[in-house]
Each structure stands twice: as C-alpha cells, then as structure tokens.
C-alpha cells in the first residue's frame, strides 16, 4: 500500500509508473505504425521498457521508505 498511497497523497513512483505505462503504450503504437517493425520485436522492446520503469519505481519507493 506504501507504493500507492503515502502521507495523504499518492506515491509519486506509482503516479509516474502509470504515466510511464501510458506514454509507453502511445509511443509503441506510433512506432509500430511509422517504423513498420515486426510487432513481436517492438512489443518485447517496449515491454522491457515498461518493466524497467516499474522496477525503478519500486526501487525508489523502497529506497525512500528505507531512509
């Protein structure tokens, strides 16, 4: 719960992770149409990017909680 809500407001890593997912979906859609790369390859790249964003958010949360 600490990851989502903290001190009477949303945790910024959670907010930024959701915004990151939205941005990644948009960027993926645009890249897929414009670059005409194979869907599977592009999906893997963006999935990795999204996972990296979420992992970073979790690390920042734990690092912020450990202080």
């Amino acid at each position, binding site marked *: 719960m600490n990851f989502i809500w903290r*001190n*009477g*407001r*949303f945790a*910024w890593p959670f*907010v930024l992770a*959701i*915004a990151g*997912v*939205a*941005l990644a*979906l*948009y960027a993926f*859609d*645009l890249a897929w*149409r*414009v670059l005409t790369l194979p869907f599977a390859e592009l999906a893997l790249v963006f999935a990795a990017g999204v996972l990296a964003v979420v992992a970073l958010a979790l690390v920042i949360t734990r690092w912020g909680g450990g202080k």
Partner: protein
Amino acid sequence: MKNNTLALQCLLLVLSFLVIFLQLWSFPYPSPLVKPLLAPKERWPEDQIKAWVESGTFDPGFVRYFMRDPERTVPPGDNLVAPADGIVKEIVRTSDVVYFVIGLSFWDVHVVRSPVAGIVTDIEQEGLSVFRDRSESASLAFLEGKAGPVQAIVTIAAGGHSYKVRLITSWWASRLKVSARIGQEIAKGERLGRILLGSTVVLDAPADTAFSAEVGSRMVAGESVIATLKTERP
C-alpha cells in the same frame, strides 16, 4: 500545498488511464491519439477499411479523405492522359485493342477522368454485370479474381478512334457513379465519374497505341501522360 499535489496527481492519473484506455480500446488499429500523426495508409489500415465495407459503417474521417476531388493540371498536346489514380497493373494487347489497366487502392482518389478530348457516344451500366457476352469476361484477365465484377463502360469517340473507359468494382462494393452523358463533348482530363469504392479502371485504346507509361508506375488522373496520339497528315 498537499491538496495541490494531490490534485495534480489525480489529474495525471486520470489522463494516464484515459490514454491507456484509448490505446487498448482501438487495438489493433491506430488509436485516436496516434491517428493525426500518421499518413493516410497507416491512419486507416487496409484490414480496418475491409471491416468497414463488411459492416457498411465507415469512419467519417476516412470518408472525407476518400471523397476528395482535387483539381488537376491537364498537360497540353496530342496525348492520352491517365483516366484514374493508381498503379499501372498491366498493358494487355490483342489484335483489335490494347487494355491499359490501372489498379486503385483504398487511399487513391477515385474520380475517373477522360483520357482524351472527344464525344461520349455510349455508356453501358446495367446492374450487377454488363457481360452480356460471357466470353468477354473470360478474355479479360484483369477481371479474374473479382467476385462478380461490376463495371460501367464509357465510350468516347476521338480523332476517328474509339476509346472505352471501364470503371470496375466488385459486387460487394458495387457503387459506380457516371457523371458523363451520351452526346456530351468532353475535354481531356474532364471528370467522367467516380468509383465509390475500389478497384480497377481500364482504358481500351486502339491496338496501335504506343503507351509510354510502364507497368508498375504510379498514375495521376488527368495529369500523367500515358501515350502520344498519332496525328494524321492531311
């Protein structure tokens, strides 16, 4: 301060979820957020257009794009110009006539124009098929693979020769609109009609017509010169 931060976070989350929803809702087709940035062929993919044809309901944006009718600059001189936008699919020669076949994609302008200045002497447009003689369909290779081809044939007399412009579509599209009238004096490049969705325009020209356009080249109706007419010496 805390309330402002919370409000900002709520706004960001609402916008983000809205983006995620719009992206997933329109998958596998382009989302409304991405469409404005795409070229027509990517903005309205072929699969999506085919689905619209099946359902009979089209995206208004695509309809506006499809129905465009730009003005064209007709080149001067004794020549034939392309009757339609699209790609030259084949040039088929027989002993009597040569067929110049142009394939139209969903994203091409579908207004058909006269390739030559002359007089409209005949217009054939009879329901689902004008193949009174089935042998004609058997000999016209460009009609193979068409499910129940529908065509309108506009015959134009010019310079002692007869030219036919065939507007061809398939039965499931089945929408041809000929604006020319029999007896009408028509200018080179002038509008003849419109195909209201896909597929082929064929020009029947005299057998000795020497086409300068090549198979695979892109045509612009009313502008692309496809052959030079031989002028008879007095």
